[in-house]
């Protein structure tokens, strides 16, 4: 079986049955950040703790990446196999808006306020054959 590893440790719970995004929360002012950081950008405190941000969010703003980005983008695609993807800020229950790719549904224009579910997907395969797993979102099925 192909081994799957997270694109970066600590961005989301993985492996997990119901993965969640992970961020940090300042123990002084309560502000959350993604990805987790040691310092708080809101109040300057150095005391933050890891917190789960949730796995269902609301689209706050969005765009569509319609052509294949150049470096530092690193995927297995070619300009021929590239498929446009959504990029948006997703308002998470943990109290922060997280920038993420999201799945586009043919014939549906994304809209601000739509519900999105977190998904962890294979993004590319590295030199040793491991699948690099990345967080993304897909429109929620109510």
């Amino acid at each position, binding site marked *: 079986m192909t081994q799957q590893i997270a*694109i*970066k440790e600590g*961005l989301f719970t993985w492996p997990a049955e119901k993965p969640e995004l992970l*961020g940090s929360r300042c123990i002084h002012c309560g*502000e*959350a*950040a*993604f*990805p987790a950081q040691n310092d708080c*950008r*809101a109040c300057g405190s150095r005391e933050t703790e890891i917190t789960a941000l949730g796995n269902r969010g609301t689209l*706050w*703003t*969005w*765009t*569509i*990446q*319609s*052509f294949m*980005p*150049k*470096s*530092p*983008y*690193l*995927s297995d695609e070619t300009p021929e196999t590239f498929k446009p*993807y959504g*990029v*948006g*800020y997703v*308002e998470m229950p943990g*109290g*922060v*808006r*997280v*920038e*993420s*790719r999201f799945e586009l549904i043919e014939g549906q224009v994304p809209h*601000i306020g739509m519900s999105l579910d977190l998904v962890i997907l294979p*993004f590319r395969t590295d030199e040793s054959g491991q699948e690099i797993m*990345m967080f993304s979102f897909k429109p929620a099925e109510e």
Partner: protein
Amino acid sequence: MDVAIIGIGLHPFGRSPTLTGQQQGASAIRTALADAGLTWKDMQFAYGGSQDGGNADALVNELGLTGLQFTNIWNGCATGGSSLHAAYTAIKSGEYDIGVVVGFDKHARGAFNPTPSDWGLDDWYGESGMMLTTQFFAMKFQRYMHDHGISNDSLIRVSEKAFQNGALTPTAWRREALSYEQIANSMMVSNPLRKYMFCSPAEGGAALILCNANIAERYTKKPIYLKAAAVRTRHYGSFEVFSPSQAMNVADAPTVTASNAAFELAGLGPKDVDVMQLQDTDSGTEIIHMAENGFCEHGEQEKLLREGATKINGSMPVNTDGGCLANGEPVGASGLRQVHEICVQLRGEGGARQVSGSPKVGYTHVYGAPGLSGVNILTR
């Protein structure tokens, strides 16, 4: 002590395949010196910067090794604004009487490709396809349209005006007017922004000679006074480029704080301004910046643009030389190009693009990564 601009110079924006970035910077300085009737050895100090064109202080190899204080400035899109601010304070403090600021650049073709670590970000952010400035500007404007009832019509009109003005500007890069339909039907790059709604990296140089206002009339009959120069960075909660997350409460952009600081310094308000340069990295940002700089309310832009308010003959002329959209963005030079154009307008030397009614007060505004803004207020 007031600060005056007594010489202005531009090396044409666009492409200069036979010249290095530094040569374009030196070319702008020579033009500015000639404009002031001065020579390089008269310069007591220089501040300058470039992103991809090499060190500014290496310009002494082109212009002469006179021993002057030459400080390199690098501050992203506000490089020109920061150089000008440094010169402004150097003269205001009384330390120097006369000097030069210069910005130049020479970027490779196509969009910038940033390195995540330069921005304090991990590689996954760039590798996964979220580190594109075009996406940020699109998402910022998508939300702005939603919050303030702005439509695509406004975006198209900003581009239409930019290329009309570019066609009237001999030093501009894009000198061909585009029709409303050409812009509206151009390729969608990043929804809602299309091809002709983005500026591109380019080449060029810009320079200004500044002096203590008390001696300005020795050099020119038309001194332009730099009444305020302010540079500000972002507060927590400001929605900025290359941010893997944003706070729930959106704070005022650095543009708002820089603008307020500059108006206070100058003792003037938005209603006093006759001609303005607002950063137009894309059409959407020009629209946002109209309000963030205090020239209208959020949402009012749709009507103003429909009425042609920001055209050369409108009530609030914006980017009379075509702005970044028609000139491209050589990052180091772009902010000083804005000041150059305001000087041209206040001197009444705009020719086919001259704003009528002898404008007295001009305004320049840059905004860029990673969330900083520079504002200058000029009078004659």
